[in-house]
C-alpha cells in the first residue's frame, strides 16, 4: 500500500513539474505552450464555469475570459499552491465578477432569482440523481454558493469574499440550495 501511495505521489509530482515547465515557457511568451496549458485545463475550467453559470454559451464566454486573463496574470503564479488549485481560484473570481457585470441589472429588473425553472415539477427519484441538472435549476446565488461550497470545497468565509456577501448570507443560500435539492430529490426535510 505504501509503495502504491508513493507511486501516486511521484506521478502527481511529475505531472505538476510538467505543468510548471509549461508555465515557465508561457511566462517567456511561448503561445504554443499556452495552448497546451489551455488544452490540459480546459475541461476543469469549463466545468466550473458551466456549473456556476448554468448556461453553456455564457460558460463558454467566461472560459475564454478566464484564459485571456490568465495569459496576462500568469506571472502572479508563484508556485506556492498547486496550479490546479490556483487556476480554480482564478476561474471562480473571473466567473463571479463576469456574472455580476452581465446579469446584475437583468436580475434586479426581472427578478431572475425566482425563475420559472425552480418551480418546475421535480424528477422525484431519490435513487439515481443527476445532480448537475438539479444544480442548474437552483436560483443563481444559491447555485453559486452550492457549487463553490459543496462541490469545490470553499469555506463560507472564502465564498463571502468572492461573492461580496456576508458569511451569514452564504450559509443561508447554501441552506436554501439544500432545501430545494432535497425537495427535488424526493426527500422531505
Amino acid at each position, binding site marked *: 500500500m505504501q509503495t502504491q501511495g508513493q507511486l501516486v505521489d511521484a506521478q502527481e509530482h511529475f505531472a505538476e513539474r510538467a505543468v510548471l515547465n509549461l508555465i515557465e515557457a508561457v511566462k517567456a511568451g511561448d503561445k504554443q505552450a499556452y495552448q497546451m496549458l489551455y488544452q490540459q485545463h480546459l*475541461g476543469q475550467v*469549463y*466545468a466550473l464555469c458551466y456549473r456556476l453559470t448554468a448556461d453553456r454559451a455564457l*460558460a463558454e*464566454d467566461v*472560459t475564454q475570459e478566464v484564459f485571456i486573463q490568465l495569459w496576462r496574470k500568469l506571472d502572479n503564479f508563484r508556485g506556492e499552491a498547486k496550479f490546479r488549485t490556483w487556476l480554480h481560484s482564478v476561474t471562480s473570481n473571473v466567473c463571479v465578477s463576469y456574472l455580476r457585470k452581465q446579469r446584475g441589472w437583468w436580475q*434586479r*429588473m426581472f427578478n431572475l432569482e425566482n425563475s420559472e425553472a425552480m418551480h418546475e415539477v421535480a424528477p422525484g427519484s*431519490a435513487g439515481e440523481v443527476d445532480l448537475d441538472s438539479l444544480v442548474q435549476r437552483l436560483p443563481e446565488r444559491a447555485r453559486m454558493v452550492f457549487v463553490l461550497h459543496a462541490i469545490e470545497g470553499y469555506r463560507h468565509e472564502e465564498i463571502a469574499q468572492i461573492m461580496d456577501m456576508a458569511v451569514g448570507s452564504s450559509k443561508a443560500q447554501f441552506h436554501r440550495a439544500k432545501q430545494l435539492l432535497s425537495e427535488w430529490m424526493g426527500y*422531505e426535510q
Partner: protein
Amino acid sequence: MSNKEFEQQLQRSVAQLTKEIQPQRDLWPGIEHALNHEQDSQPKSNSWAFQSMAAAFLMIGLFGWLGFNQMQGGDRTEQLVTVLSEPYQQQKQRLLASYANQPALTDNWQQQVQELDDAAAAIKLALKEEPDNPALLKMLKQVYQQQIDLIERVHAPAWQTI
C-alpha cells in the same frame, strides 16, 4: 425519507460528479485572437474610457441644466431620455463603425445588442407611464452602458484584475 439519507445521497452525488466537462465549440480561436490583439486593444480601451468619462461629465452638466430650467412632467422626462440616449447612441455607432472589419469573439453578440435595444425600448415605454421614476432612468443608462461594454468586450476584451 430522512435528512440523514438526503445528506448521504447528496455526498454520493457530489463525489460522482465529473471533474471535467468539455465545451461544445472550439474556444481557442477566440482566445488566440484576443491574445494577438492585446497590444492593439489596450490603447483603444483607454481611449474609450476617456470618452466615457467625457460623456459622463457632459451628461452631468446637461442634467444640471435641465433641472435648472424646471421642465414639467412628461416633457421633462422625454427630454431627459433624449439627452441620456444621444451620447450613448453616438458612442455605439462610433464603436460599431470602428469594429466593422474586426471579427468578434462571440457569434451572438449582435443578438445580445438587439436584446438590450429591446430592453431599452421597454424601459422607455415604462417611463411614459411613470415619468418621475428615477430608477427607470438609471436602468436605461445601465442598458446603454451594457451595450457599449458588450461591443467593446467582444471585439477588444477588457482586461480585468484577477
